[in-house]
């Protein structure tokens, strides 16, 4: 198991390098001169040249590439052009909020989605199944930024049960702040996971080994949870990976709607202000997350399905 994790970790190295290369190329291809953006239209050619020299923009491309890659790997993201604060500090301040939101929203989505899916599969074509189907349709159909705005207006603005903006400080206030944005993101997620669980479990419940479990004398609950669900979770795990990625990108909009700190809002602001080092770091961090999520999903597969474990 430890070795497997090691192998998968090792496998991510080329992916990370590829991602860094793409970010590097994309930034060079962007129109506009970073020096001009940083110093403004009234900068003298000497100032511009000095800036380029400081930023290493006059160096040959291959050297820039190596420096860039090295800096990214060592988490040296430079300083913000706007506030002159080290980008690492900006990320360190905001990243926990995004991670927190993703984790809580995913947890809620799973806690609601899997039981809903099981219920729908067990009572197929009966009232609970139809109810879950209706819920899923609604969950899919409402855009999250709209749902977020509605929840904000009803529960924060009118009823005053939840704070309107911010991320909170101690644990209790953080959880208080996170509730509405997490529910917003969890809605689509539970709809998605619920449908996936239903389909997958229905398929598994028709398999021969489920009949074997019944023939052994296992009662329905045991048949469904012990023999059915574990086998049904494989496709759900794949779906969970997709849904985690969706949450990450969805958090950009949600952080904006709820005025929460987080990588999403940092990125949006940086783009508006053309703060290149921050954009660059934000994109790289998102890319790292995608790689990390894929890694975690792979490991989850290994934990669930013994057939994937290689000797």
């Amino acid at each position, binding site marked *: 198991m430890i070795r497997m994790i090691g192998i998968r970790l090792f496998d991510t190295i080329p992916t990370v390098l590829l991602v860094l290369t793409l970010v590097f190329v994309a930034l060079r291809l962007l129109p506009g001169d970073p020096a001009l953006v940083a110093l403004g239209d009234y900068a003298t050619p000497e100032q511009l040249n000095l800036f380029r020299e400081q930023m290493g923009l006059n160096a040959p491309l291959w050297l820039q590439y190596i420096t860039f890659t090295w800096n990214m790997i060592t988490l040296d993201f430079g300083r913000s052009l706007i506030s002159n604060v080290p980008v690492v500090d900006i990320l360190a301040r905001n990243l926990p909020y995004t991670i927190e939101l993703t984790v809580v929203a995913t947890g809620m989505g799973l806690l609601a989605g899997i039981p809903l899916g099981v219920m729908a599969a067990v009572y197929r074509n009966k009232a609970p199944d139809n109810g879950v189907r209706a819920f899923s349709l609604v969950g899919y159909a409402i855009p999250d930024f709209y749902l977020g705005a509605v929840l904000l207006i009803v529960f924060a603005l009118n009823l005053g049960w939840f704070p309107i903006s911010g991320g909170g400080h101690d644990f209790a206030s953080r959880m208080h702040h996170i509730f509405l944005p997490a529910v917003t993101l969890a809605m689509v997620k539970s709809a998605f996971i619920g449908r996936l669980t239903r389909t997958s479990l229905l398929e598994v419940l028709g*398999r*021969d*080994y489920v*009949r*074997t*479990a*019944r*023939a*052994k*004398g*296992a*009662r329905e609950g045991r048949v469904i949870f*012990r*023999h059915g669900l*574990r*086998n049904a979770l494989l496709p759900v795990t794949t779906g969970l990976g997709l849904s985690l990625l969706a949450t990450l990108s969805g958090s950009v909009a949600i952080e904006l709607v709820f005025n929460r700190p987080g990588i999403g809002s940092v990125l949006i602001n940086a783009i508006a202000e053309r703060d290149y080092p921050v954009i660059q770091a934000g994109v790289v961090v998102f890319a790292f997350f995608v790689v990390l999520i894929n890694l975690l999903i792979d490991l989850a597969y290994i934990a*669930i*399905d*013994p*057939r994937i474990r290689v000797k």
Partner: protein
Amino acid sequence: MSRALLKVENLSVDFGPVSNPIRVLNDVSFSVGRGQAVGLVGESGSGKSITSLSILRLVPEPPGHIAAGRVEFDGCDLLKLPRNKMPEIRGRDIAMIFQEPMSSLNPVMAIGDQIGEAIKLHRALDSSRRRERVIELLKLVGMPDPVSRLGSYPHQFSGGMRQRVMIAMALACDPKLLIADEPTTALDVTIQAQVLELMKKIRSEVNSSILLISHDLGVIADICDRVVVMYAGRVVEDGDVKSIFRTPKHPYTQGLLQAVPRLADDRERLYQIAGSVPAAGSIKQGCPFFARCSLRQNRCQEQMPPMFQFGSEHSAACWVTAEEEVS
């Protein structure tokens, strides 16, 4: 034969919508005595597997539906039992081995746990005693090096070994009745022979009654005391192995026996029964074998023959051979 362990009486099973069901089992009756091994033979689609699943009430409902009949086991009608009582019977009193060893084991559960579960569900043993019992069962079914295989998963075994695991699981609680639904069909010929040897060994070492379902008459002749021949969802002949193999009374059984290849044969082609099994539910009247029968007469088309007695232990549903017997 004293009181039978299992008595299936007039069992009828429908499939499809309640408004327009298709009858796949029609008036099936037979019994299995204590310590007896009974073979259930017939072509694919004759209703053998549905019969065995009906005994455990494992026919998927819907679309299946047990329409009529009794399944008396140890003096109690299983079909009248409340649904939530069935798990107590399954695996403890009646255990079942399925045809497809490749897909009948849970792929994400170690085999030791799967066999252990069969014990755990019915016996209060602590985990170390349970483990001992699992090892003992694996030894019984001829699993090499059982202790080290406890943690292995089904995909690490061959088909024959998986079937051994299935058999070990079925024997876990010393069931009174073991139903084996074509236990060797999905296996290679050499492995088939090994599993058959194992079934014979079990027959002599364990005192379970056996209901062996097969389309292979050789297998049945090897293991069983009695044979029940099914055709198109009906029992057409029922008797002890000797009289059925020596003097088959139903033309269908006669045809089946003729179709068995023999080493001493000098025939160029194997015998085959002309035509094919009618689609389930397509025969509304008369003998289901009518269209393929070489002895058919007019009345066969109109009236389903009852089971005629040919000696104390042998009966068959055929007008023609019954008449010959009388005259």
